[in-house]
């Protein structure tokens, strides 16, 4: 009886603690959401906490009527799709041959790939390379340098390597070429890992910031993250100059910034819950090998 009571107590406390954790996790988003739906006056006078004050859509109206913002979103979508497709094509092209046991030179190629996981030239030589290839201020500067992640490649190889060889042999006896086997047998069986890796590539590209800062200076090629960074940056400057006395004007209204943040976050929040299990699978696959 006593045991049952303490069990219940434990469950109750655990539930409360978890609920608090979940709320801490969500509160920042709710606050930003509330700001984005509030009037400028209410935001500036600091009345907004977790609920909108003086409900107002002006911030979203200006974000959606800001053509540079829409353009940036369009560019980011294009960039993400293009780089995900190319990354996957290249990763598959590299991964499939390396699952073949009999392939001559496989060891050497694996070593060539593995070395890049532990050592890199660094930002500056990479920047010089991109500049020398005349890729600065092109979409390719954000696509080509990251085509294959050695880490994801290894996940793919270990997954494909687990496909029963008998299936491929059967196809080979039927006269299929290696390429035919890849397309008709291996890829359909690898669908879960392909989805997972595509998602990782896509999220990485969508959220990627450093390379956009390095390689893109033309504002019409600003991906969302870089565009958003400019807003955050303005935020910082007003915050820093705040101590220097009055007369400092704000860069952009807070509600507009909040709406922009939501604008860049919502696409992720919309797709994420449906794809969650693929992301989780990816972590497991990585852990098995890594």
């Amino acid at each position, binding site marked *: 009886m006593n045991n049952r009571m303490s069990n219940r107590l*434990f*469950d109750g406390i*655990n*539930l409360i603690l978890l609920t608090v*954790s*979940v709320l801490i996790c969500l509160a*920042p*988003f709710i*606050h*930003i959401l509330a700001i984005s739906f509030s009037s400028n006056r209410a935001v500036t006078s*600091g009345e*907004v906490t977790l609920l909108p004050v003086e409900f107002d859509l002006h911030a979203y109206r200006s974000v959606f009527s800001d053509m540079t913002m829409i353009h940036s979103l369009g560019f980011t979508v294009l960039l993400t799709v293009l780089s995900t497709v190319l990354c996957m094509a*290249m*990763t598959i*092209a590299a991964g499939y*041959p390396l699952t*073949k046991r009999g392939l*001559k030179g496989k060891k050497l*190629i694996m070593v060539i*790939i593995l070395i*890049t996981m532990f*050592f*890199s*030239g*660094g*930002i*500056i*030589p*990479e920047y*010089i*390379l991109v500049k020398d290839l005349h890729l600065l201020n092109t979409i390719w500067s954000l696509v*080509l*340098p990251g*085509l*294959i992640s050695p880490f994801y490649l290894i996940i793919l190889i270990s997954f494909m390597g687990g496909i029963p060889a008998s299936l491929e042999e059967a196809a080979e006896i039927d006269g299929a070429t*290696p390429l035919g086997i890849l397309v008709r047998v291996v890829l359909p069986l690898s669908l879960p890992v392909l989805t997972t890796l595509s998602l990782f590539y896509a*999220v990485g590209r*969508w*959220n990627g910031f450093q390379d956009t800062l*390095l390689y893109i200076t033309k504002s019409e090629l600003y991906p969302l993250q870089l565009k958003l*960074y400019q807003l*955050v940056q303005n*935020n*910082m400057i*007003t*915050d*820093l100059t*705040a*101590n220097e006395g009055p007369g400092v004007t704000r860069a952009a209204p*807070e509600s507009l*910034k909040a709406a922009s*943040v939501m604008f*860049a*976050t919502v696409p992720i929040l919309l797709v*994420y819950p449906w794809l*969650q299990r693929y992301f*989780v699978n990816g*972590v*497991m696959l990585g852990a098995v090998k*890594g």
Partner: protein
Amino acid sequence: MRGIVYLRRYWQLYALLVLPLAYFFIFRYSPMWGVQIAFKDFNFFQGITGSKWIGMDAFREVFHMQDFYRTLRNTLMLNLLDLIVSFPAPLLLAVMLFEARPMWFKRLSQTILYIPHFISWVIIGGIVYQLFGTQSGMINNLLDRLGLDAVPFLTDKTWWLVIYLLTGVWQSAGWGTILYLAAMTGINRELFEAAEVDGAGRFKRIWHITLPGVKTTIVTLLIINLGNMMTIGFDRPFVIGNKAVLDYSDVLSTFVYRTGLESGQYTLATVVGLFQAVVGLIFVLSANFASKKLTDEGIL
């Protein structure tokens, strides 16, 4: 003859490898070749090969820079503090999730707790300023309403450090539970049942069964983290940091960016990058060695 048969059978596989290998040579190996500018007086007109050799001069200059030691210290300090603050959180959260009763509640909590992992640092930076800004941040608004003075969360070094670390916990704690939860699900059910029969309470079961069951995971993750002490992402310190707290927020990655791309001192920045890469490699290799000793399993 065997060679011809072999090629006829496998040429497609080699054809597939052509572009990926070209990628690795162009985008991964040629920058490594480009590292030679650390020993050269690099400028864009003469290019990598044309620039003059200067031996170790740039290294000597870097090792005399105050800023270099400051960023090196900050890199290690932020990583170490991050490890201390952020490492226990996922484990604690995983235990709570593992014990959580109604299944739907557990699932829902997981879904929500994973979200911050998918939010870019730029967005998190924006959120941080909305929450902790001195002028109009939510927290300071609340303090103001209580009649308290504003706290310079983002412009005071120590406060900034606290915010930096808490943001890290917020972003990574949920996602970090995945590996622990997987390990916990792998624990033999019978152990729990036997403990229950023996009258062990929930805390006892957690202490004697759940935690020992994830010991290997803990040790492995700890070693990986220690191995990455020299590696620090660029986005987080760059976006959350600001001029007022440069004393703490300036790390190797942001330093390389500033000296290289903002001031155009490519050689010096390459030296710093190379130093970081080499020392980082030593860290990772030692971590792997330690892992082999401790868990009979390498992490590489």
